[in-house]
């Protein structure tokens, strides 16, 4: 057989029926992740047609988007943003009960952001196809799984048939050579990549991130990179599974156990792209040149090193974006005054992210007039962080330590910024109004976010890290 890429192996292994000129392929889906926002209409579709949900055992649900991140009040009531949000959560609870789906709801010790808990539970595994009615499903590609976001109509298709109608996407290899410099992390890397290839640089493609700088990343860092593939317009992001992947997964509740584990690892070892496999496009990035990177405009492709002057707008739309952000061409983003700092979201809310932020904050205080929110990605992250005392570091610094959820990443649960406020955010989208109407978002790493909270201005975290950590 000819040399195949990781993507082609995943694609071929899940073909229920191949594509033809007239019809798309029928692709089998191994794992369907469900949350409250994009599922209600799909459940209605099933009910309307009198259909069962085909594979409850391949379906996993959680509550994350509309959920409050403040604990229940004295009356036991959770502080929902509005009655609709509360009803949406209740709708998912009822739907999961009716269709027999495992729901990590309020009473689960594993509840959290859908893209954080899938991997944490070991439900996300190499070689799988994984979908969710959420574009950041690309996160799971870090494990060598073909994972992508779908709309609600397709959520219904998967519920009823465990399959999707799909045309085969193209492949884009992004080779990351060299090593990331000290104090520069996965978030800086992916912002840099999107800044290079553009918000539509990956449209129609599945990206495979390769090369020594990628192999050197931890699983958490790989998830950060794959998470933002969609911000380059890509269908999915992939990283080949290796020893790092296997070590991370071993022993997790949904991961194979015993002899099954050994068989699974043997199969996973065959997944990486073959020598000589061809991609439709290839891009090379030099990791050693990357510095702490932030966005300066209103989409993630408008990203540069924070100490570099903001480029002159090329057209009226870019001018409008700079005006909206109150960024000035020719001036660096570093030093811009900050109102709110958000550490969280499926991009950067795992334990390693919180440690990174805490390291900067330890023994320091959030600047006067700055509000900082730290929202762990899951109950497990919250537990682990509290065991290490990170919550105390945040509290001592004057930051708010919240209950897990999407929170200010999408600002639909009531956590939001006021018009005109500048938010340094570890999330993935800096669209106009994403974090509240009129709010200005600067995307950054957890270290940059924490340093900016302390400085009250966008700040280079390298001056705030201890020697060992910066090393």
């Amino acid at each position, binding site marked *: 057989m000819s040399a195949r890429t990781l993507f082609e192996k995943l694609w071929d292994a899940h073909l229920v029926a191949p594509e033809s000129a007239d019809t798309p392929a029928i692709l089998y889906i191994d794992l369907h992740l469900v949350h409250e*926002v994009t599922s209600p209409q799909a459940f209605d579709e099933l009910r309307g047609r009198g259909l069962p949900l085909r594979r409850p055992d391949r379906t996993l649900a959680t509550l994350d988007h509309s959920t409050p991140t403040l604990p229940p009040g004295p009356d036991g009531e959770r502080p929902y*943003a509005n009655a609709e949000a509360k009803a949406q959560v209740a709708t998912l609870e009822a739907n999961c009960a009716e269709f027999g789906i495992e729901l990590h709801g309020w009473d689960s010790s594993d509840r959290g952001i859908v893209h954080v808990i899938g991997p944490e539970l070991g439900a996300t595994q190499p070689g799988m196809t994984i979908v969710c009615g959420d574009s950041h499903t690309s996160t799971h590609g870090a494990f060598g799984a073909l994972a992508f976001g779908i*709309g609600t109509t397709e959520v*219904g298709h998967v519920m*009823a048939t465990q399959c999707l109608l799909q045309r085969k996407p193209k492949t884009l290899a992004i080779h990351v050579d060299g090593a990331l410099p000290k104090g520069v992390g996965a978030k800086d890397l992916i912002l840099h990549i999107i800044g290079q290839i553009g918000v539509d640089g990956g449209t129609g493609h599945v990206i495979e991130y390769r090369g020594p700088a990628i192999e050197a990343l931890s699983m958490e860092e790989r998830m950060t990179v794959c998470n933002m593939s969609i911000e380059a317009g890509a269908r999915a992001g992939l990283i080949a599974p290796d020893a790092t992947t296997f070590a991370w997964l071993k022993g997790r509740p949904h991961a194979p156990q015993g002899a099954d584990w050994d068989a699974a690892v043997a199969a996973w070892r065959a997944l990486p792209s073959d020598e000589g496999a061809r991609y439709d496009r290839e891009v090379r990035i030099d990791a050693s040149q990357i510095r702490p990177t932030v966005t300066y405009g209103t989409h993630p492709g408008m990203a540069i090193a924070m100490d570099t002057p903001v480029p002159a707008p090329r057209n009226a739309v870019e001018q409008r974006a700079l005006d909206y952000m109150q960024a000035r061409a020719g001036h660096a983003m570093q030093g811009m005054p900050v109102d709110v700092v958000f550490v969280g979201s499926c991009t950067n809310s795992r334990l390693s992210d919180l440690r990174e932020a805490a390291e900067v904050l330890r023994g320091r205080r959030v600047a006067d007039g700055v509000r900082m929110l730290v929202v762990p990605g899951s109950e497990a992250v919250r537990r682990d962080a509290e065991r290490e005392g990170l919550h105390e570091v945040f509290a001592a610094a004057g930051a708010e330590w919240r209950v897990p959820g999407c929170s200010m990443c999408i600002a*639909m649960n009531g956590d939001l910024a006021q018009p005109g406020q500048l938010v340094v955010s570890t999330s993935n989208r800096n669209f106009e109004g994403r974090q509240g109407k009129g709010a200005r978002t600067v995307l950054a790493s957890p270290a940059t976010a924490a340093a900016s909270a302390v400085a009250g201005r966008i700040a280079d975290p390298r001056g705030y890290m201890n020697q060992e950590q910066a090393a």
Partner: protein
Amino acid sequence: MKPVTRIHSRTAVLADENIDTDRIIPARFLTTTTREGLGRRCFNDWRYQADGSDNPAFPLNRPEAKGCAILVAGRNFGCGSSREHAPWALLDYGIQAVLCSEIADIFRNNALKNGLLAIVVSEAEHHWLLEHPGVELAIDVREQHISLPDGGRIRFQLERFARHCLLEGVDQLGFLLQHAETITRYEFQHEEHAA
């Protein structure tokens, strides 16, 4: 889905590039559990002023844009989230087709599944359309062309299955369900080692 064969309308233009799904429908309106009535929230934060009145600077609020069913948008329309609320909102608002030189993948897929024509045209044609708001167009799905008032034509590509579904009003879930036996066979072959 009802069949979609022909759309005849003047165009309205939103020339911004990268109009994302948060602009089409802001996230705070996603707490709904139905798909109806989202048109009111379409482009909400762009379309209304702080006091709730229409923003005169929003191009679709201009009198000449009223009733236009064809939207010509800047490059990379629909980027961002997978929320199907975006095409639902556009359709409910009265938009039946979006023309653009590049449309984000998930949005395009969601749009076509709901009978919203998401059509990619060449850069030159896109440029011309952006420069000529209000032009009267007739989009023919069967022939895959757009007729201009001067008799000129713009040809466009449409994935064959999507075109078939639009023309015949095919129910894609119904189509998948016809393959239930093949799916069962696949599951049997791939899961026999398990358990």
